[in-house]
C-alpha cells in the first residue's frame, strides 16, 4: 500500500543526478564499515540508528566489522570520532554529519585518504567530500506539506511556522522550501517563526506563548516540519481549551503521537515522515560502493504522504489515509517509517558483526 513509484524528488529534480563510478573503491569483501553518528539525542535519531543496524544485519555476509561512534551533537567531537575510526583502517565511512559545514574539512581529508564517504540524512557542502548522499529529501517533504497547508486554507490565513533545530541543515532546508511555497500565496500571512529543536516540550511552550499573544481564534494553521514539535503545538491548543476539529490544520509526521492526536481530534492534518529507513538504504548503498557498483551521487528514499480523511487538496493527495496509517495501539513516542518489519524500539535487536 502507499506510494511505491519512483521517488518524487528524483522525478521532479531538474538537476541531473550523476552516477558515480566507484570502481576504485571496489574490492573483495567482507568489509569494515565505520559509522560516525551525529547523535541519538531524540526519537527520530534513535529509530534511524536502529534502521542502520537493521541494514547492517541484512548484509552480514559482506560486512565483518562495523564500528560506531556517537558525537552527541558536537561536531568537534565527531571530527575526533572520525579520526579514531580512520585509525582502525575502515574500508568506508558512513556518516550522519552533526552540521553540514563543520565536517567538510575532515571528510575531504578522508576522501583524499582513499576512504569513500557516504553521508546520510545531512550532506556536506562540497561535492568532493563524499561519494554519495542518502536522503528522503527535505525539500520535497517541506514543499508538499507547505503546499497542502496553503491549499487547505484556500490560500489565505494567518499561520505559524515551527521549524526544527536551528542550524541543523534539514531544518533549514525544510524551512526555506516551505517559505518558497507560502510566498506563492499572497493571502497567507506568516504570524511567527520559532525554532523548536524538534522537542515536544519546546513546541508546546513556544506555541502556548504564541497563542497567548495572538488569541485563541486568530491562528488558522501551524506548519511544523515534524510531528515532534507538531504534537507539542497541538497540546498547546488543547491546553488553551481548543479541542477536536476546532484545532487549526497542522502538518508534521514522524511521531506516532502526532498521528494519534490528529486521528483522535479529527482536525485537518498532513503528515510526511522523514523516513528513518534511509539508515538501511545508506548501508546498502555503502556495500554497493565497496563492491564497485556505480551509485547515484544522491539517493532519494520514498516517503508517504498521510492526510486526514476528506482533507486532500488540489495538488496534494494522500498516499495513505490517516486511519490506515496511525498506530493507535503503539506508544505515542514511536517513530513511524522505520521500514523495519513489526518494529518495536524496546525489543528491537539484531545480531551485528563484533
Amino acid at each position: 500500500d502507499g506510494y511505491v513509484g519512483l521517488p518524487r524528488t528524483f522525478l521532479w529534480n531538474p538537476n541531473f543526478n550523476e552516477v558515480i563510478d566507484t570502481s576504485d573503491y571496489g574490492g573483495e569483501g567482507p568489509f569494515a564499515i565505520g559509522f560516525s553518528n551525529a547523535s541519538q539525542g531524540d526519537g527520530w535519531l534513535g529509530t534511524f540508528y536502529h534502521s542502520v543496524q537493521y541494514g547492517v544485519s541484512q548484509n552480514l555476509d559482506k560486512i565483518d566489522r562495523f564500528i560506531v561512534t556517537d558525537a552527541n551533537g558536537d561536531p568537534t567531537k565527531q571530527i575526533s570520532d572520525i579520526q579514531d575510526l580512520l585509525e582502525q583502517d575502515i574500508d568506508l565511512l558512513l556518516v550522519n554529519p552533526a552540521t553540514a559545514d563543520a565536517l567538510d574539512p575532515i571528510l575531504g581529508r578522508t576522501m583524499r585518504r582513499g576512504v569513500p564517504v557516504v553521508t546520510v540524512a545531512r550532506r556536506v557542502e562540497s561535492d568532493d567530500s563524499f561519494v554519495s548522499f542518502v536522503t528522503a529529501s527535505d525539500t520535497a517533504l517541506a514543499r508538499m506539506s507547505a503546499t497542502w497547508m496553503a491549499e487547505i486554507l484556500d490560500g489565505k490565513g494567518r499561520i505559524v511556522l515551527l521549524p526544527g533545530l536551528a542550524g541543523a541543515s534539514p531544518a533549514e532546508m525544510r524551512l526555506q522550501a516551505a517559505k518558497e511555497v507560502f510566498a506563492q500565496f499572497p493571502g497567507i500571512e506568516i504570524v511567527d517563526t520559532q525554532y523548536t529543536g524538534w522537542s515536544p516540550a519546546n513546541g508546546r511552550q513556544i506555541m502556548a506563548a504564541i497563542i497567548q499573544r495572538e488569541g485563541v481564534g486568530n491562528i488558522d494553521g501551524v506548519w511544523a516540519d515534524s510531528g515532534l514539535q507538531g504534537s507539542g503545538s497541538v497540546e498547546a491548543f488543547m491546553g488553551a481549551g481548543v479541542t477536536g476539529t476546532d484545532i487549526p490544520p497542522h502538518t508534521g509526521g514522524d511521531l506516532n503521537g502526532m498521528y494519534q492526536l490528529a486521528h483522535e481530534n479529527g482536525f485537518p492534518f498532513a503528515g510526511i515522515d522523514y523516513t528513518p529507513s534511509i539508515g538501511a538504504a545508506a548501508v546498502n548503498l555503502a556495500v554497493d560502493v565497496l563492491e564497485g557498483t556505480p551509485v547515484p551521487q544522491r539517493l532519494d528514499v520514498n516517503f508517504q504522504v498521510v492526510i486526514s480523511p476528506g482533507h486532500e487538496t488540489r495538488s496534494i493527495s494522500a498516499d495513505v489515509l490517516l486511519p490506515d496509517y496511525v498506530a493507535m495501539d503503539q506508544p505515542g513516542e514511536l517513530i513511524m517509517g522505520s521500514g523495519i518489519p513489526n518494529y518495536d524500539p524496546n525489543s528491537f535487536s539484531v545480531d551485528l558483526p563484533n
Partner: protein
Amino acid sequence: MNQNIFVRRFAVLCILIVLISLATVVQTSFLSPSNIQDILTQAAPLALVVLGQAFVILVRGLDLSVASLMASIAVMATAFNATSNAMIPVIFVVAIVVSAFVGLVNGFLVTKRNVSPFLATLAMMIVLQGIRFYYTQGAPSGSLPDGFRFLGTGRIMGIPINVLAFALCFCILGWLLHKSSFGRKVYITGGNPTAANLVGIYADRVTIICYVICSVMAGIAGLFLVGFVGTVDNWVGRGYELDAIVACVIGGVALTGGKGTLSGAAVGALILILIFNIVIILGLPVQAQLIIKGVIIIVAATLFSKASRA
C-alpha cells in the same frame, strides 16, 4: 528577620513589577486570568525545582544534577509502560524514593567526602545522563498513563493542577523552612557550619537532608513536566539546573548560604518564565531572552551583594 531581607524582597518585587507592567503595556490582555493561568502552568515545574534548589543553596551548596534527574525520573516513569491511572501513585512513590537516593549520594559526597558541591553534583549530572541514555538508547519509548496529562495540564476549579501541586509544596516547604525548628537549623548551618556543630546541630545531617529535599522536588517536577509536555524525551528540563540556581540568586538566596527566603526564590522562578513570555510577546526571537536573563542575573546579584554589605 532582619532588614537585609526586606531590601532583598523589595528588589525582587521591583524586577517582577517592571516586567509585568512592561508586558501589560505591550499586550493589554496580559493580566487576563487565562493568561495568568497559562504562565503559572508554565512556571510551575521550574518553580518546583527552585524550591528544592533554595534549600541546598541555603546550606552553602549547589545542585547541578536536578535537570538530569528530572529527565531520568521522567524516563523511569515511562519504563513502567503503565496504562492504568492506578499506577500513577506507584510511579510517584518510586520516583520519590529514587530521587531521594540520588540526593543522599550528593549530600554524602559533599559532607562526608568533602567534595565541592559543584563537582559532586556535576558528576552526578553526567552519570545520570549516561545511565538514562544507555537505558533508552537515545529514544525513550515507554508510555505513560493518560492521568499524567491531567496532572500536567488539567485544572481543578479552573486552577491548573501543577500550580496546585506547587502551592502545596510551597506551603509544606515554607512551613519547614520558616516555621519549623529544622528550618532554623538550615539557616544556622548555612550561616555558620562550625557554630552549628558547636550548638549541637548535626550540620552534615541537615545538609544531607537539604540535598534530599532538592532531589525529591526535582523528581516530582520531572513527573509534572512530563505531564505538561505530553511526551517524554531524554532532555526534559534541559537547562533547568542553571535556571533554578539563577532563579534563587535573582530571588535573593545568597550563594554564600544562610540568607534568603523561599518566596523570594519562587518569585525568581516566576521572573525567569516571564522573561520567556515577554520575549515572545514582543515578537523578539527566543534567543533574546538569553540576553535579558544575563543582564538581570548580574543586576539582581549586584543589588543583593550591595544590600548584604550595607
